[in-house]
């Protein structure tokens, strides 16, 4: 029998879920905001959002380390204001997951909001519904297929995030050791049994998530 520490399982589940919720909400609202406007600079914003996708995750992690590290702009700010160090903490895992999965959510949501008939929204407005009510009851359900796709992609990506996490959060047993990190180190150290075990776990998680979402 394998001697397994289950901490990666809970950690991965927890961080992927939290990251997905954050990404889903932020991505959806930003996409809604920008979807039907076109202004100069929109493409620039979209390109920046997409950036973490074209860079190898390790490089993204490197960039985040520079930003959130002890000498980084945000890192110092957080340290000064809250005496809080992000690097090597559980929050670093979430930040890494959010950054890498955000582009997936944003792109999916953006497309989803472009793909339905605007007049349905107008009809709801004539019935006195507030912007928030229209969003919640009309735009959101009509865009749901695309939003769901973004949700699935984001969750999967957050669950599988490895390179940036390792860089920003380090590999600290019981604190930042997500399943992908456990897999990586098991493979690297030639412990194939352990690697297979975790691959199986993460695959089942992915499966469950998809089945549950469909």
């Amino acid at each position, binding site marked *: 029998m394998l001697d397994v520490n289950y901490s990666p399982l809970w950690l991965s589940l927890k961080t992927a879920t939290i990251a997905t919720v954050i990404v889903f909400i932020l991505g959806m609202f930003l996409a809604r905001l920008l979807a039907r406007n076109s202004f100069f600079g929109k493409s620039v914003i979209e390109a920046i959002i997409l950036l973490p996708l074209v860079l190898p995750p390790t490089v993204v992690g*490197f960039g985040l*380390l*520079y930003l959130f*590290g*002890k*000498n*980084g702009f945000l890192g110092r700010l957080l340290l000064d204001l809250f005496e809080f160090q992000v*690097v*090597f903490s559980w929050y670093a895992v979430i930040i890494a997951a959010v950054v890498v999965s955000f582009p997936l959510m944003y792109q999916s949501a953006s497309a989803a909001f472009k793909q339905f008939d605007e007049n349905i929204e107008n009809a709801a407005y004539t019935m006195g519904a507030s912007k928030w009510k229209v969003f919640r009851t009309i735009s959101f359900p009509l865009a749901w297929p695309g939003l769901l796709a973004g949700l699935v992609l984001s969750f999967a990506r957050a669950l599988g995030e490895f390179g940036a996490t*390792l*860089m920003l959060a*380090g*590999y*600290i047993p019981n604190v930042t050791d997500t399943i992908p990190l456990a897999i*990586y*180190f098991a*493979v*690297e*150290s*030639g*412990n194939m049994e352990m690697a297979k075990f975790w691959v199986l776990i993460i695959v089942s998680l992915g499966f469950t998530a998809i089945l549950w979402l469909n």
Partner: protein
Amino acid sequence: TEENPKAEKDTAETVRLTVSAAVSLTDALEEIKTNYEKNTDVELIFNLGGSGSLAQQIQQGAPVDVFISANQDWMDTLDEQDLILKSTREDITGNKLVLIAGSSSNLNYRLVNDISADDIKQISIGNPESVPVGKYSEQVLKNLKMWNDLENKLILGKNVRQVLTYVETGNVDIGFVYESDALSSENIKILTTVEDGLHEPIIYPAAVLTDTKHEKESTEFVTYIASEEAQKVLAKYGFKK
């Protein structure tokens, strides 16, 4: 000039050797390549990576002629599976373990023993389970009976470069890396070089692979790395047998 003989060489039958080498050797090997190709009909192609990944690629049949590993374990694994020509195996160079801190750090330990858990918040080493440099670091700390004190301050990196980055950016106070890596960075200072007796010797073995189609040229190249000319280059980048 430089270009012409080379062009001629291409029309004559140039032998291409694929060399899978530990990534830490990158810069040294580039220089060795330039020297070597000048005087032979051989073109060297380096496939660089972590020793573990390189060994796995070879196990899966990657077309490689020469393997240079950063430790003996992976070479032994390939040896057991008869993937290397035993007679060609040679320890070509070695490395030292050093303790480093950021260049602006006010720590000035003279010995590894000086490390005190109270001075430091975090210390980074390679992951002992998968990275050779981490395994050596663990041996040192365990031999000095410091492991238990420091264990909860450890940040485990996936390779030397990550440890170096953490120290360079000031996110950890100290770390253990190879001397060759320490020399390549300007933002850190070497506090001390670890005594050899505290860990297994750090050896880089090389060998020709069973599957090579160019056994003669490959063997010649391994021999060349062991030669004095190549050793000088390696020494320049911090590698010593």
